[in-house]
Each structure stands twice: as structure tokens, then as C-alpha cells.
């Protein structure tokens, strides 16, 4: 009984976020536009590198830079709404378990992040990888990295954004806390993406080694974020 109750509460909060997004389309458009703008900046960054430069070498780094800043934008938006419209107060007043709020917000943020990532990756390939060598390993491996790293980003990001939305600097504060905390995850995500993109002997093994690292980070950090969320959201 209690379990099904939590499940209903979870679905209700998630549905609220989805409905709001479907009506305003604010998160997806702002995150997507941000990703596009980042690619324009990449064009500038690579402008003098010449045609012989293999973009695949820096591609894993470039996409994760775009995704990390994009995710901060989305995380911040997701809680600014909650706060400005008094939604978080209403949630706290209603008889919803605090962990349910964490998992619902986590799932919502993960969903939006994955959608924009999956949309912007083909665009990146279209703009930068045409006429280049293809991926060395099956493309679905990149999908595995996206999912693995996005879980960590959204999980820990949900906790940090809940805190920073109440600070003076909001988005700047989120960056200050988020980027160093995320370092181990991002480093492994770039390593795994690189192994998937370049290919060759030993890269599949390297890929799964990096993914083990990503999974370890996800389990430990999301568990800590979950444990701390109850304390953070109440004050």
C-alpha cells in the first residue's frame, strides 16, 4: 500500500513537470538553443585548426563540455520554477515523502537532459563529422555513456540545484559547486566516449573500464545525494 502510494506521488510530480514542459517548452528550447550556440563557439574554436585536424579526437571533450553547461542551465530552470511559483512549498506541505520528491525531480531532470543530448548529438555529427571517418565502435556505446553520465549529473545536480536556488548567485553558485563535484564523472565519461568513437584494439575493454568508473560514481554519489536531500529540502 505504502509503496503504491509513493509510486503514485512520484508519477504525479513527474507528470506535473512534464505537463509544464509540454505547455511552455521552456527547458527543451533553452537547453537545445544553448547546445546549438555552444557548437557555434566550437566552430570558432576550431576555425584555424585546418581540415586535416581530426575532430573526433576532441569530440568527446566538446560534447561533454556542451552537456555539462546545458545540464546546469536545465537544473537551475527546473528549480527556479519550483521556487518562484511557490510549488516547492506546496509540495512540502502536501503529505508526500521527501525521498519521492528527490526521485521525481531526478527522473524529470534526467529525462529532459537525455532528450536534449540525444537531439544535439546528431546535430553535432552533422555539423562537425561529415566526411570524416565513422565511429570505431558501435554507436549504441555512446548511448550507454550518455545514460550513465546523465544519471550522475541529474542525481547530484538535483541536490545541488535545490540548494543553489536559495543562494544569492543561483546559476553561478551552481557552477561553482557542480563542476568540481562532477569532475570524476566527466573525466570517465570523456574517456568512455573517446574509446567508443575512436575504436581499435583494446578500446572496448577501456570503454567498459571507464563505464565501471561512471557506474561507481553514480551509485556512491546518487546515494549520498539521496541521503542528504531530506535535510536540504526542509530548511
Amino acid at each position, binding site marked *: 500500500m505504502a509503496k503504491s502510494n509513493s509510486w503514485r506521488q512520484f508519477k504525479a510530480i513527474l507528470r506535473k513537470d512534464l505537463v509544464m514542459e509540454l505547455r511552455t517548452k521552456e527547458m527543451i528550447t533553452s537547453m537545445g538553443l544553448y547546445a546549438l550556440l555552444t557548437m557555434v563557439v566550437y566552430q570558432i574554436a576550431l576555425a584555424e585548426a585546418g581540415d586535416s585536424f581530426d575532430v573526433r579526437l576532441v569530440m568527446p571533450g566538446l560534447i561533454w563540455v556542451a552537456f555539462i553547461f546545458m545540464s546546469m542551465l536545465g537544473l537551475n530552470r527546473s528549480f527556479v520554477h519550483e521556487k518562484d511559483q511557490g510549488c516547492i512549498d506546496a509540495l512540502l506541505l502536501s503529505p508526500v515523502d521527501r525521498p519521492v520528491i528527490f526521485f521525481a525531480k531526478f527522473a524529470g531532470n534526467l529525462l529532459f537532459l537525455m532528450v536534449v543530448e540525444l537531439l544535439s548529438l546528431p546535430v553535432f555529427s552533422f555539423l562537425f563529422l561529415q566526411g570524416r571517418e565513422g565511429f570505431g565502435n558501435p554507436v549504441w556505446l555512446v548511448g550507454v555513456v550518455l545514460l550513465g553520465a546523465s544519471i550522475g549529473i541529474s542525481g*547530484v545536480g538535483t*541536490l*545541488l540545484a535545490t*540548494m543553489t536556488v*536559495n*543562494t*544569492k*548567485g543561483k546559476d553561478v*553558485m551552481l557552477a*561553482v*559547486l557542480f*563542476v*568540481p*563535484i562532477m*569532475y*570524476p564523472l566527466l573525466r570517465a565519461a570523456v574517456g568512455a566516449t573517446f574509446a567508443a568513437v575512436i575504436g581499435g584494439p583494446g578500446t572496448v575493454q577501456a570503454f567498459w573500464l571507464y563505464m565501471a568508473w561512471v557506474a561507481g560514481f553514480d551509485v*556512491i*554519489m546518487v546515494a*549520498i*545525494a539521496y541521503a*542528504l536531500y531530506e*535535510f*536540504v529540502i526542509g*530548511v
Partner: protein
Amino acid sequence: MKRNPLAEIMLGLGGVLTTAAFFMAFFWAPGTSYPDGRVDFAQKIFYFHVPVAEASFLVFIFTAYYGIRFLMTRERIYDTKARIATEVTLFFVLLTMATGILWTRVEWGVWWQWEPRLTTYFILTLLVIAYFVLRNSVEDEEKRAVYASAFGILAFVDAPISFFITRWLNSIHPIVFGGGESSGLETSMLITFIVAQVGMLMLGYAFYQLRLREEELRERLEALKIEIGD
């Protein structure tokens, strides 16, 4: 508010030991030399760099520990303790960075190298700084304490990573203890190191206790001022 004689003794003793270790390092412990026979003078920084680095990791444990205590009890003193522990951590972290960079320049020929230990330690530095940036940007006192505790616990995860990473990954940072055949020290070097390390930990303890006492006095003063004002 009672005086803390132990902290004062530790301060004096720590000062004597670290100074003694300094002289021991130069006049007693044998220097290592390069393959071509030149004396490796830069190695002497080991007796300062490693003790401050170990101290930074150890003191940072208290940030997480008192963070947990605060969240459990909501007693303000634990938040103050966590903050002071982080202050002392920052002090040791900056010393580690400064001495490390000097050694890197001499030994590796560059001021900075993105290798695993240096990278994770740099992240640790950023996290410790971020802790204070976070504190400064929250106005509500309870929120500030809760957020800082939560972030302190989360940030602490990087400390064991940074500590053990030279043993996990291919790192060019030296591993002195338990790192295989080429690691380990001669007895006189080991004794010098232990003196320096013990002295540094005493100093860390003394800094923490004395800063805590100062902070408690300041808070009492603020409370008294408000009382008189009423």
C-alpha cells in the same frame, strides 16, 4: 570560556618539531642524488610538502564528520566546528599547492602537469574554496549551515580519490610509502619525516582548537552585544 592548555602546548611542541625537522632534513637526513651524481636538493621539500598534504586530508575528514553531526543534531556548534575544520584544511591545501608547484618546477621542469594526483588535488582545492563561496551566498543562518554541511560531505568524497589515485592509476607523482621496490626511506630520512609529520599534525590540531575558541568567544560577544542592546 576556559583556556585550552592542550592546544597551546601542541602549538609550541608542533612549532619546535617542525622546525627541528627542517634542520634534520638539511643536516642529518642524507640527500638523494640524481643518476649523474648531483645532489637532489629539491627532495628536501618532501619533509614539508608531504606533512602538510597529509594534514590537509586528515583535517578535511572533520569537515565531513561534523557536517554529519550537524545534520543529525542541528546543534550550531557542529556547524562552527565543520567550518573551522574547513578553514584549517584550506590553509594546508594552499601550502601543499605552493610547495608542490615549486617541487614540480625543479623536478619535472614545468610548473604544472595535469597528472592524476595534481588534477584531483586541484579539484579538492576548488571544492574547499567552493565551500566558503557557498557559505557567503546564503543569508539565512540555518540554511547556510545545512547547505554547507551537505556540500562538505559531498565534497569529501574527492579526498580519498585524490589520496589513493597515485596507487590506482599510472601517475608520475612519487609514491614514497608502500609503492613497490623503489619506495621506502632510509631510517634517518624516515625519522625526520615522522618528526615533521607529527609536528604538523600537532600544529593542525592547535590551529583548529585555537580558532574554534576565538570563534566561540566572538559568538558570545555578539550575543552579549544583542543582550545589552535590548
